[in-house]
């Protein structure tokens, strides 16, 4: 009798424990809270808005399909205004007050670099969909992921094509005076020189600059046969229109290898002057895979513009976070981080995974603007 009683209580405890364990491992009640830090005001507002479009579309898709294991994804969006200090304050708010499982952001590399310390201190995964500065994944911060290519990867792929194949060997750089601009110019200069090319002129500008005549005038007097622009939509549209005003289009090929200009707003601002710009992009709307075609059609239907790589990155990164939470089966940020590092993802861009430095491994397409369309001329070219 006595033995039976002990057995029963042991079973009881075991049953309770196993139930309890199950309850701890599964997702807690309530929504999966995901933070987003993007510039929604200032000169990057347009570009940041595109990424946000992608994020929102992905989250609506996930929720419409039943959410993450039955839990809805809820977004907490903060404005970084393209200012690193504001981005840090936004990140602090998201991890401190909103208790999010992961943060998507920022747009500019300077903002992302500033937020990385908060990610490490608060042990919250931070995944940037856009920032290109190579430094971000070189600092050994395991809490930070880059859900897109780095400017170094783009530089390797693009110079292979431009310098080695197309014999564009005298480069001039016009870059935005930020971590992204300076980091990218360094990365590209090195690769151009490695392949036997020459860098004849380098100049930086402040974000939101309007008058580029001083630079264009110097450029005209240089021996460059290729101009490499590193910046964002609005600034670069001014560079391109002033470049044409000075009549340089016959002498110099414009290249936008980080494809800051490959979006509908740029075409609207630059019109025919956009023709002939060569770039590299991990994504354009003309990629013909089932996932890409579905994404392009859905996006076009929802926003009435074709998607570009900013929207694609927002879309992919939001899906990656949701998959990571699902695989971790937990909202514990450390488990989400581990799951994110191990993710095998397939999106509109193609198959992708993170390397040991949390850098996404993807290829590049070489693209040229022709009559307001982005045509793929080569690719995908892998960096290695």
């Amino acid at each position, binding site marked *: 009798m006595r033995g039976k009683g002990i057995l029963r209580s042991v079973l009881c405890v075991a049953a309770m424990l196993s139930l309890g364990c199950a309850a701890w491992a599964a997702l807690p009640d309530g929504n999966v809270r995901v933070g987003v830090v993007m510039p929604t*005001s*200032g*000169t990057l*507002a*347009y570009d940041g808005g595109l990424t946000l479009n992608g994020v929102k579309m992905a989250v609506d898709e996930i929720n419409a399909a039943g959410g993450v294991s039955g839990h809805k994804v809820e977004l907490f969006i903060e404005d970084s205004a393209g200012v690193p200090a504001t981005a840090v304050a936004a990140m602090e708010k998201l991890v401190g007050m909103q208790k999010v499982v992961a943060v998507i952001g920022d747009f500019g590399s300077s903002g992302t670099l500033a937020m990385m310390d908060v990610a490490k201190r608060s042990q919250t995964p931070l995944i940037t969909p856009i920032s290109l500065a190579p430094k971000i994944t070189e600092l050994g911060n395991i809490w930070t992921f880059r859900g897109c290519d780095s400017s170094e990867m783009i530089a390797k792929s693009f110079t292979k094509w431009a310098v080695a194949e197309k014999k564009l060997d005298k480069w001039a750089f016009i870059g935005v*005076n930020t971590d992204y601009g300076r980091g990218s110019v360094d990365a590209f200069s090195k690769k151009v020189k490695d392949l036997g090319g020459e860098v004849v002129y380098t*100049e*930086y*500008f*402040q974000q*939101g600059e*309007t*008058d580029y*005549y*001083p*630079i264009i*005038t*110097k450029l*005209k*007097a240089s021996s460059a046969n290729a101009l490499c622009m590193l910046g964002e939509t*609005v600034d670069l549209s*001014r560079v391109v*229109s002033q470049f044409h*005003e*000075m*009549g340089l289009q016959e002498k110099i090929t414009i290249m936008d290898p980080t494809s800051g200009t490959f979006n509908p*707003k740029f075409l609207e*601002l630059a019109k025919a002057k956009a023709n002939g710009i060569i770039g590299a992009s991990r994504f354009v709307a003309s990629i013909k895979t089932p996932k890409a075609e579905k994404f392009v059609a859905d996006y076009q239907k929802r926003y009435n513009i074709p998607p570009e790589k900013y929207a694609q990155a927002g879309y992919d990164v939001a899906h990656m976070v949701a998959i990571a939470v699902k695989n971790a089966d937990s909202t514990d940020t450390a488990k989400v981080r581990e799951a994110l590092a191990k993710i095998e993802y397939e999106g509109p861009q193609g198959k992708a995974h993170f390397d040991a430095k949390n850098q996404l491994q993807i290829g590049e397409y070489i693209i040229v603007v022709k009559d307001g369309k982005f045509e793929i001329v080569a690719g995908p070219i892998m960096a290695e």
Partner: protein
Amino acid sequence: MLMVFLQQALNGIILGCIYALIALGLSLIFGILEVANFAHGEFYMLGAFMALFSMSGLGVSFFPALLIAMIGMGIIGALIERAVFRPIVGKPLINSMLLSFGLSTALANLALLLFGADPQKIESGLADYHLRFFGLHLTAERLMVLVVSVALVILLAWFIQSTRTGKAMRAVSQDRVAAQLAGINVSRIYTITFAISGALAAAAGTMVGAMFFVSPEMGFSVVLKCFIIIALGGFGKIRGVIVAAVMIGLAESLGGGFISYAYKDAYPFLLLVLLFMLKPQGLTGGSGR
């Protein structure tokens, strides 16, 4: 090298002409009402939007749109003077500084709310015509900017020198009480001053909107630069302000072209510091009073 220098100088002069239009209005307001109008950059921004919308909404071409923007901003400038600045004329400068700063923020954010942050371009249709002379390069659009701004400045100088109203404006700026005693309607002069300044700012905004872009945040950096210009050129002095505006345009263009473009916004301020060190009485000398 000489060609590069001349081309940079030409670019700088065109830039300077735009600055002159904005700074002259600011300087007139400062000289006559003795208020600092930090919202002047927003006059310039609103003027540009007015031209943009008259082209897209009414379908008029560039020059009529320029005229509509000037008239429209003239009226809005007069209304703002009557409603906002009139009550604080004669009060310490800090009142107008704080008030206009608030007005500037309010107008810029109102524009952001109504028109959105996306920059838009005014199509003058002249940017595709290229002129080449002695190895220098100029688009018809930039030539138009040069011609229109020089014409407006000459018109303003003539107005102030030769018309009855212009003389009354000068009288008010020299001594408000004496002018009032001589039978000048000082309040009317205030309104006219704001109307002229608003119209000049709108002209500048429209031309900048054609050369570059129209966006709600375009006004702020310009107004700071124009305060440097009127500090350099002398408050309320037409000739001094024009010289200073062209100097600032040249400093940006030549400094940006030959030293480093990344720091081009620093050159006007360096110029101001240098001037205060070497010639503290200002560019044109003397206090003018």
